[in-house]
């Protein structure tokens, strides 16, 4: 019996992974994700937790064919550089064909299985982004 994914870590990162919890620096006003103990822009430790918007814009993307072990079932992996307000997030894009992706397109956060530890270990859920659903403007 062995486990590849840390159980306590899975538990610790729920905020950023489930709810896009980020940190806002009270000194320089900038927001970073995932939250760090000090601001990566100005070094201040005066931070507060904020939640990023769940909708944003795809600034860039890559269609990854050289996939890491354990991800062949979803190859090619679509990797996005997503702008959420003033913050950029790197995360997988889901529910899209490579040919559908365009820089500048609107995307929205969804909760997906990011990793699962083989057959019996822990499942790590977290945010991915998908092309904004038509009718999704109804969402807030």
């Amino acid at each position, binding site marked *: 019996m062995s486990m590849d994914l840390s159980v306590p870590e899975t538990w610790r990162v*729920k905020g950023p992974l*489930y*709810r896009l919890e980020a940190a806002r620096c009270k000194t320089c006003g900038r927001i970073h994700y995932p939250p760090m103990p000090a601001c990566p822009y100005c070094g201040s430790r005066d931070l507060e937790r904020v939640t990023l918007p769940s909708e944003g814009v795809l600034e860039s993307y890559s269609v990854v064919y050289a996939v890491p072990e*354990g991800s062949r*079932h*979803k190859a090619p992996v679509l990797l996005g550089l997503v702008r959420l307000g003033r913050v950029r997030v790197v995360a*997988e894009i*889901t*529910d899209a*064909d490579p040919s559908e992706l365009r820089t500048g397109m609107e995307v929205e956060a*969804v*909760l*997906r*299985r*990011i990793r699962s530890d*083989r*057959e019996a270990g822990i*499942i790590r*859920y977290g945010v*991915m982004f998908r092309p904004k*659903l*038509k*009718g*999704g403007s*109804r*969402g*807030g």
Partner: protein
Amino acid sequence: MEGRPEEKTGIHGWGVYVPRYRLPMSEIARVWGWAPEQASGLGMKEKAVAGPDEDSVTMGYEAARNALRRASIEASRVGAVFFGTESKPYAVKPSATIIAEALGITPATMASDLEFACRAASEGLRALIGMVASGLIEYGLVVGSDTAQANPGDVLEFTASSGAVAYIIGPREGAVAHFEGSYTYVTDTPDFWRRAHQPYPLHGEGFTGEPAYFHHIENAVKGLLAELGLKPSDFDYAVFHQPNGKFPLRIARRLGIPKEKVLPGLVTPVIGNTYNASALLGLARVLDIAKPGDRILVAPFGSGAGSDAYSIVVTDAIEERRGLAPLFDDYLERRKEIDYATYAKFRGILNVIK
């Protein structure tokens, strides 16, 4: 207000989720050598298939998020989360807590997963009505979500599909629809089961019909009508559990309800049987189009076996909430057709070394 406990409660938000991928019936028939007419005999066109990064939790989460948006309440006011499924990602470890945590409902809440084949979510709904009516909780969330399994090559494979639905139940005041009454009818009837550690269910084929589906739904509905003093013609819509496209129309005919009142909530022909979502997803489709004052009959069913019947009346509040989240039809239009090989890969039917 004295009276039935149901009358003190209502639906504050509803939300659905249907995955993007669709498997046409012709693909299943092609691969497994079924007669071409097999699927049309079940009233089926195609079924929704969860993607490789989806499961009943991720689908249930999205339906619940949509319901919460429509309810327009603080997540922390939800005092109970019931998750009905027969495709839990963890056999032991609640799925309800994952959804509750991701939505910000935790920690001051009840949360548990319920199992009663396709009817667990409906039992959760009825439990919430009681809990809200008693004042134990202010609001409750019930989620029905399944990535339904079927033994590849079994006739069940035509219908077993993926989807989710969720409701926020709360006080009658401010509800988009309020309950008038509810009735449950259960017996020990072994029409369909999945033994522990087995990946796929088995079923009694024709035995799933008369002694199971029809007997239980008919008695639940008749029980409800008797208690409320209503007759079938009092309802504007009727939604039944929909294991295929034919059974709901047949039970409606038997109860004297015209087809036109059933079709708006009959979603299985285009997305398949979403098990715990099934009838409740049909109800969501009806709420997407219903007008204030409409009375809806809903009767979910679960193998093993049991049925619940509810009478629901739509209120004026529905119009302003409808637009707060995507409709069933928005998800239906988001459609990517796949072949059987892709379906097999997505649903883990292929044997691979991990």
